[in-house]
Structures are given as C-alpha cells and as structure tokens.
C-alpha cells in the first residue's frame, strides 16, 4: 500500500493530468481515486471516467485492492473481531457450552460483582501486575547494562539469561515446583541450616503461592525484556556518556542521568507489555498451584477463574464471557494508563 501511495505523489486532482501518466501511476491513481473524490467528488469522477476511456490499458475495478486485502481481513475478522463481538454478545446471555442462552441483561455482571471469588481473582490479578511490572521494567534494564559490556565470552551470559524465555512454561513450572516444594531444594537447605523449623509453604499458602508464581514470571521475563533494552541501549549515543564523563559524572550518575532518560520510551513499552501479560497470567499458577488455583482457590487470577467457570460440560459460557469482558476492560485501563504516561513523556 505505502509503495503505491508514494508512486501516486500528492493526492490532489491536479496531479492527474492525462499526459504525464505511466501505467504504474495509473494503477496508483485508481487506488487514490477515492481519496481524491472526497475533495472534489463530481469533478474527480468525471476525470476518472475520461482517463479510463483514453488509456484503456488496464481495467481496474474499485474492489481490486479489497481483493488483495481480503485474505488478511477475513482472517482478522474470523479469528479476532468476530470472536470478540461474540463474547460481548454472549456476556449478556445465560448461554452454556452446549446450550444457547437467552438475553439476561447485566445479570452476569451483577453476579460477578456479588461473587467474592471474582473480587479475590481481580485483586490477585492487579496485585500480580503491581508487583511484577516494576520488577520487569527495572531488573532487565540492570541486566542489559551488565551484559552490554564488551568483554570476551559475554555472549555466553547473554544466552544464559535468555534461556528461560525459550524453555516452555510447563518445564519452567516443574523446575520451580521441585525448588519450592515443602521437601524441595530451598526448604531442604533451610531446614538443614536450621534457618526455619517448619518448611516454608511456598506452594500451599495462597499468598506465598502468588509470590512464587510472580518469581517465576519475573525470572522467565528477565531475558525477554533484556533483549528489548539491549536494542535500546545500542541507540544511546556514546558521545553523551563521554561528555558526562568529562564533566565528572560517575557510573551511577551516568546511569540515572543518561541511560535511564534515553531508554525511557522503551521502559514504557516494556511496562505496558508486561502489564498486559501480567493480567493474563495463568500457566504459572496452574502448574504451581494445581487445578483449584491454590488452597480454596485463593490464588486464582481472572484468567484462571474464567477458565474454571467456562470449561467442561456445565461450562457457563455466558458468565465466563462477562468475566472476560471485565478482564478486557481492566487491561484496557492499564494500557491507556501506559499510553498516557508515554504521551506525557513526549511533550
């Protein structure tokens, strides 16, 4: 599309003088015909008809570009827009997995707000975000600054930090489970050293389970976001650091006064991305805390609750859809917050 736009030049009716036309620009012209029409409807249409009459080389219909767009559009509509619209519709019904529902207005939403399980899950999701996002904004930056140094063998460190990203969530979960269980690595060491007298309930206490899951999420995200920061750090001009060093700024001062402001847009991006994924967390809690989501379901997050409500034979599709919409709204709020922050940064 953009290549075509450029070939067409300025989008004014005046640029369409028949004599200056090549077949290439003709193709481009019909693409822009609609834009032109907006400015000079009647004249544009007449000019266009005249043009098509006198070249007659390539006949192009109005729908040709849509034909090219169709495969992508159909996919997006079928697998993103349509399911989304359907979820909104379903959230106002009492549909079940195998049974269509009837319209029930806001009953599902009212039920959610009255359901203590929903508030626990929403609270856990937000708590997850509040703890995980700062960790994932700052720790990978620190790591990136460390591995940015050009010393022999640094590639090994970079790869090592990236490894958890490649490992599947299930593998990561199982490893951490063996580390954190009551007879796992950490507890065995602590008990042997008499640091604790009872195993720490990393996986059997709702709050500790959430914390454990957060640790896994952060550990797994470190390498991923580190790569983002490495790219951003590469764009910080060396001259700035040089100038600051000449002015007598130390390493710490240069980090806060040069590096941080320079990578700030990236920090906001990382913040937004990690916030969205924090609100979607499911796997870590499922693997560490089992099907019930912690004892008594106390460590359930919103996606966890949605899955539990919507799955299986008695799956309450309507209610699960309403919960999904609430999760979407929550995500939207935090995304807009991130955008607002980045806007404020630009001005």
């Amino acid at each position, binding site marked *: 599309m953009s290549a075509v736009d450029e070939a067409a030049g300025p989008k004014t009716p005046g640029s369409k003088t028949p004599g200056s036309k090549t077949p290439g620009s003709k193709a481009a012209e019909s693409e822009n015909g609609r834009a032109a029409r907006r400015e000079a409807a009647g004249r544009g249409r007449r000019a266009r008809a005249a043009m098509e009459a006198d070249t007659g080389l390539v006949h192009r219909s109005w729908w040709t570009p849509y034909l090219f767009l169709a495969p992508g559009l159909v996919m997006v509509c079928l697998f993103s827009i349509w399911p989304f619209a359907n979820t909104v519709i379903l959230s106002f*019904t009492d549909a079940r997995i195998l049974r269509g529902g009837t319209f029930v207005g806001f009953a599902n939403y009212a039920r959610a707000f009255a359901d203590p399980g929903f508030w626990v899950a929403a609270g856990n999701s937000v708590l997850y975000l509040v703890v995980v996002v700062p960790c994932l904004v700052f720790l990978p930056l620190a790591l990136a600054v460390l591995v940015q140094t050009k010393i022999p063998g640094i590639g090994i460190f970079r790869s090592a930090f990236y490894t958890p990203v490649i490992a599947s969530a299930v593998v990561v979960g199982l490893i951490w489970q063996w580390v954190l269980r009551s007879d796992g690595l950490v507890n065995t060491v602590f008990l042997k050293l008499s640091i604790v007298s009872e195993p720490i309930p990393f996986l059997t206490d709702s709050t500790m389970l959430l914390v454990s899951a957060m640790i896994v999420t952060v550990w797994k995200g470190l390498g991923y976001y580190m790569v983002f920061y490495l790219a951003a750090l590469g764009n910080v001009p060396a001259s700035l650091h040089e100038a600051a060093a000449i002015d007598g700024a130390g390493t710490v001062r240069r980090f806060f006064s040069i590096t941080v402001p320079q990578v700030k847009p990236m920090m906001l991006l990382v913040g937004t991305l990690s916030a969205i994924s924090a609100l979607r967390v499911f796997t870590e809690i499922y693997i560490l805390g089992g099907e019930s989501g912690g004892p*008594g379901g106390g460590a359930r997050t919103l996606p966890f609750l949605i899955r539990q409500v919507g799955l299986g034979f008695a799956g*309450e599709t309507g209610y699960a859809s309403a919960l999904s919409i609430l999760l979407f709204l929550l995500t939207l709020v935090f995304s807009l917050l991130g955008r607002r922050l980045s806007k404020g940064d630009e001005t």
Partner: protein
Amino acid sequence: MTRSNLTRTAVATLVAGTLLSTSACGLSGGAAEVEEAERTGKVSGGITFRTLQLKPAFTSYVQGVIDAFEEEHPDVEVRWEDVPGDGYNEKLVADAQAGALPDVVNLSTDSFQLLGDRGMLADVAKLDGALAQDYVPGAWEQFRLPGKGDGVYAYPWYVTPEILTYNRELFEKSGLDPAEPPTSVEQFFDHAERIAAGSGGRYAAFMADPKGRLPGDWQKMGVPILNEKRDRFTFDTGKAVEWVERMKDLYAKGAMPRESLLKSDDINQLYGAGKLVFGPGSPGFVKDIKQNAPQVYAKTRVAGAVTGTLGHIGIYAQSLGIRKDTRHLDAAAAFARWVTNGPNQVEFSRKATIYPSNARGLADPLFSDRGDGKDAETVARAVGAEQLKSAALDANTPVQWTNQVGDAVVREMQKAIKGEQDPRSAVKKAQEEANRLLADAAAQ
C-alpha cells in the same frame, strides 16, 4: 457498486452475522423424542463405529475385530472412527443434537449417562433377552438408567476396577501387617495415622488429593451424595464432616505430602521413590511401576480396593451404545455383541491393562492365576477380576457432580483440611454451593 453501497453491504453483513449468531445462541438443546428403530432380522447395511482414543495403540486389534466381523457378515460394512478423549463428551452431545450420532458408539461412564438421559440410546436388554447372562452382573447393572425402568442401555465393554496398592516395606516399618491391608475408609485413615507417627517425615501415607478422593470416599462411607430424585445434593452429613476432620488431623500430622492437597500428578514419582506408602488405585499403575521403579515394584503389594461395609468400588467402565434410531439395528446390535464377546475381550485385555466385562471372558484362567502371589502385576489382575465378579455396586461419580461442582467442593475441603475453616461449615458451604450450581444448570 459505489462506496456507499459497499458500506451498506458491509453493515448488512455484520448485522446479519450478529443476528445469525444470536439466533444460533438461542438454539435450544431440547431435542425431540427420538423414534426407536425396528428389528428386521437381517444383519446387513453400513454402520459407523466410534471409539474413544484407541488409535494408534490398538489400531491393529480393533481393525482385526472389525475384519473378522465383516467376514462373518459380508452384508455389513463397518466404518470405524476414533476420537481423542479431550472433548469427547462435548462432541457426542453436539452430534446427538445434530442427529449425527454413530450407530455403535463407545461410551465412558459419564458419556453413557449424558446420552442415556437424553433418550438417545437403544435398550439392549429388549433387543436380546438372553444377553444379560453374558456379562458380569456388576458391569451389566451399571448400564441401567435411574427412572427408566428395567432397560439396559449399553453393551458392557472393558472395565478397570479400583484396587489398592501399597509398599510392603514401609508397612512393616510402621508396624503394620502387610497381610492385612485396610478395607474401609476409616481403617485406611487409621493406617495412615500409624504411618505418619513412625515416618519422621521421610515418607507419607497417601495423597490428599481431595478432587480425586471425592465423592468416592464419601460414597464408601455411606454418605448419600444425591437425593432420590437426583436433583439435590445431600452429602452434608455427620459422616462427611468426620471425613474432613480426619483428613485435617492427618494432614497436620504429615500423613500426606503438603502439596498433594493441591495436585497429585507426581504420585507415581513419589511412590516410585519410596516416599509414599499407598500408590494409585489403578491396575495400569502397577505396570508403570514395574517398568520405571523395579526396586519398589518388588516391594509392592496389591489388595482389593477399600470398600467399606457397602461393598462399593469404583469401576471405570467402557461400553458400547446403540443409537436408538439407527437404520441398521440388527447389524449394529450384532456388531456390538461381537466386539464385547468373551474371546474378543480377553484378547483386548492381553494387550492393555483392562478387564473384560464379559462373564465368560472373565472366567478365562488368565484372570484367576495369582502365580506365586509375589508378582504385583499378576496379583493385581487376579484381585481386580475377583472384585469385578463380586462387586454389586459401584462408587462412580454421578453426572451431577460436574467439574464445577467438584471444584467448588474441593475449594472448601482444601480450606478445612489446611485448618483455615471449620470442617462442619466447610461441608455445609460446599453443599450450598453445589446445590446452587446444580439448580443453575437445571434452570435452563
């Protein structure tokens, strides 16, 4: 077509799509009464046969059975399709609503009830009066439907009974007699208490796993799970509270691995590592241990399942249902009977750790041979078969105990077992929540 036309078309399409979907949502599941097929006495025609996750492990066995049948009845053509276990029930019910059920269909305990309750299955007892004597009574009786008279709605196929597996060495260390395993839930808890007292935290007695333990444990203790009409849960009883109290007490004493309250998928590893006294209660597990932990296998003993005074045991039963309005009833019935006959079932159980539901099949010497009484796999086969012959009732999970009900009950149990909630109110809250879910599901 102009641009405004295009917009109009787009909007119209969107609106139409939306309407279509809402009307699709509004499509109610109440299928009309299915008409019953008639016998013609002629075994012929093309029938479809759907199995539950038997490919690729048992492809050659199933195909062999089909080929042999087609040879005997050249007028019948059997089309075999195998469907994976995930979402099997959902697919069946969707097919039933669309009128696309196969003629002969492999059913698990819950899919049997789902189709049976909807009146989609033919009464096989009526098709063939002498059929009952072919099968083990316990298996045959399983396929009656409450409130639907004397009918039996499926041919029993392969079954796996619950058994008890335990580590002999750890039994002896705890001062327990390996020759006298527990036979009731209460005794099982007593054993666990002894084990916990002597283990010093090095091994646990059993997995807490409330999700897997319920409602089976309660049924064995004589707790009524549902009322007569099966439309309300009634498990809030003194016995159920007693169960929670004992679990709580045992959990505090370290009779169960801490994490097993939440998940029990590592039971094989724990048992195989000698960190658990009671292993899983399925015969297939014994085979796993033999392959993966030969040392522990040598110490493994097998006994009949914990049943209590009522003789309940859990039977995982597979069956073959006949579509009620099948076009080739005779062929379908003959085929289902063929697949579930003695020789074919015995052949199947030689290939997998399963048991025949066919009386003649179960009488095969393979299932009474205990060897020298030391090889756990051989004993497990004999013990399982023994139980199948005598077990009158089963402790299967009723369909009303859906995933959601199970989750809701388990959440309350977890809190109580951890000591965060009083057992009495935990059972009460569990029942309230379960009844709410049941009423919600029934209201639609």
